[in-house]
């Protein structure tokens, strides 16, 4: 059977989520949206919303605390799967493509993608390998420094974390969940609800224009919303640094870099989170991985897999640290 593309699978997953939310609304199940999804008294509450509600009300809310702890533990266990598989923003951001990759990002991007696209089969790969026969550079390319399996990731504090802090401080001062006002996830479902009420109850409102406008503004003005702004992602990244399951793993005997010394950077280019599986020292932390599997799809020789459990043994005959 032909393997489905990861982006197709993700679209199906998101479609299922949307369908579930809309069906819950249509059939009066009271299941809610991604801000809080549940049945009767059992709820999974948005971790950021939970924190905001606790901070804003300055009261101990048992349901909220339990949901928060469980969801953060789930993030630690499974990583940031929410971002790639459930969050509608990761799908919508494709409609607003940003500028092309910033030039001078350190790697020979052009050569890499050329190698990646041309070396689908053996002969082409060999040809590229022969041209890069200079021993020194070849060793440099072959040298791989993957993130050690089974070890927790480091946390890199960036703009998202500052926005998370700002949102919580602001929430504490003003006494209401501030980020929820502009959260593109919440606004997506609010837009759906607004359209539903327009057709169901003939109830027009400015929400029909304002909510989508805010989402578009956010995705267009802050092009890399998920990487630079999203405080929910920031909160999750704090926990996902503990994640060791389901990490991307390069089969070094198949990878063009490590086995043949070809300067292929297809996996790095494909990664929205800018994780470089071959250079743990210069890469974004592996804890930022959202398990979107784009790297696996981009790899011309299908060398990247996502084993559920970390395997510690290094591939034979390949230079690798530890």
């Amino acid at each position: 059977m032909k393997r489905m593309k990861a982006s197709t699978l993700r679209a199906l997953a998101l479609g299922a989520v949307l369908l579930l939310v809309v069906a819950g609304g249509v059939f009066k199940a009271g299941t809610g949206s991604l801000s809080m999804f549940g049945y009767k008294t059992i709820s999974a509450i948005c971790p950021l919303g939970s924190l905001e509600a606790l901070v804003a009300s300055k009261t101990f809310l048992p349901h909220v605390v339990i949901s928060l702890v469980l969801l953060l533990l789930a993030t630690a266990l499974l990583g940031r799967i929410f971002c790639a598989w459930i969050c509608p923003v990761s799908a919508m951001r494709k409609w607003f493509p940003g500028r092309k990759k910033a030039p001078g990002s350190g790697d020979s991007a052009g050569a890499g993608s050329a190698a990646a696209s041309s070396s689908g089969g053996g002969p082409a790969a060999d040809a590229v390998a022969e041209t890069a026969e200079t021993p020194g550079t070849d060793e440099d390319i072959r040298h791989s420094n993957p993130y050690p399996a089974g070890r927790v990731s480091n946390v890199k504090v960036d703009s998202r974390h500052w926005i998370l802090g700002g949102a919580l401080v602001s929430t504490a001062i003003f006494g209401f969940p501030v980020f929820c006002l502009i959260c593109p996830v919440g606004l997506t479902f609010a837009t759906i609800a607004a359209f539903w009420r327009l057709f169901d109850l003939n109830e027009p409102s400015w929400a029909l224009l304002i909510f989508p406008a805010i989402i578009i503004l956010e995705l267009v003005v802050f092009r890399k919303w998920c990487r630079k702004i999203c405080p929910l992602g920031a909160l999750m990244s704090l926990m996902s640094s503990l994640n060791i399951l389901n990490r991307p793993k390069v089969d070094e005997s198949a990878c063009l870099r490590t086995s043949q010394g070809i300067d292929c950077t297809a996996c790095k280019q494909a990664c929205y989170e800018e994780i470089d599986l071959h250079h743990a020292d210069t890469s974004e932390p592996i804890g930022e991985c959202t398990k979107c599997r784009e790297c696996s799809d981009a790899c011309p020789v299908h060398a990247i897999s996502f084993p559920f459990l970390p395997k510690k043994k290094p591939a034979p005959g390949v230079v690798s640290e530890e």
Partner: protein
Amino acid sequence: MLGLGGVGAALPSGNLLRPPGGQDEGSFISKCLKCDRCRSVCPTGVIGLAHPEDGFLAARTPVMKFHDGECVFCHKCTEVCSAGALTPYVTEASTFNDKEVLVPEDVVIGIAVVHKDRCIAWTHAICEYCKDVCPYEALSRDEQDRPVVDETKCNGCGICEYICPLLSLRSYLGGRTRGIEVLPTEEVEAL
């Protein structure tokens, strides 16, 4: 973020009719995550969503829309509100017209006000729709058979506003206000 919070706090917001248990507005707005669960679970459909035009802060929060239904105090909205924005309240079972009704003991959504310039009974002829449906006997008739609200008995369930036929029978009046309307308690006290 601080600016956004400041703008949200600074912009004026009117009194809104919240679902039962959400009457303490400060506490409500601090916990409501705008998740849509209470609106979706409401069996009568009376819970609607505030629009951006109801206030920047209030947009997407639940409000009572008595043109779409009435509150039967079934507790379903407070049950699904895990964030605690809608707090549980106490009801006592009673009967009205051989049907069981729940009488809230510690919560009042709002208070019904008769618009004497619009109400059919007050301006025209006899109309007893609202009086007949009030499960809490908060509506009585004066000596000219016009509806009068007993503010101490009214819980703001809104069934009188829901049933009021004014906009159908006298649609030529225009406007969106019916002959009787549930208003937030603060506004009624200020009248």
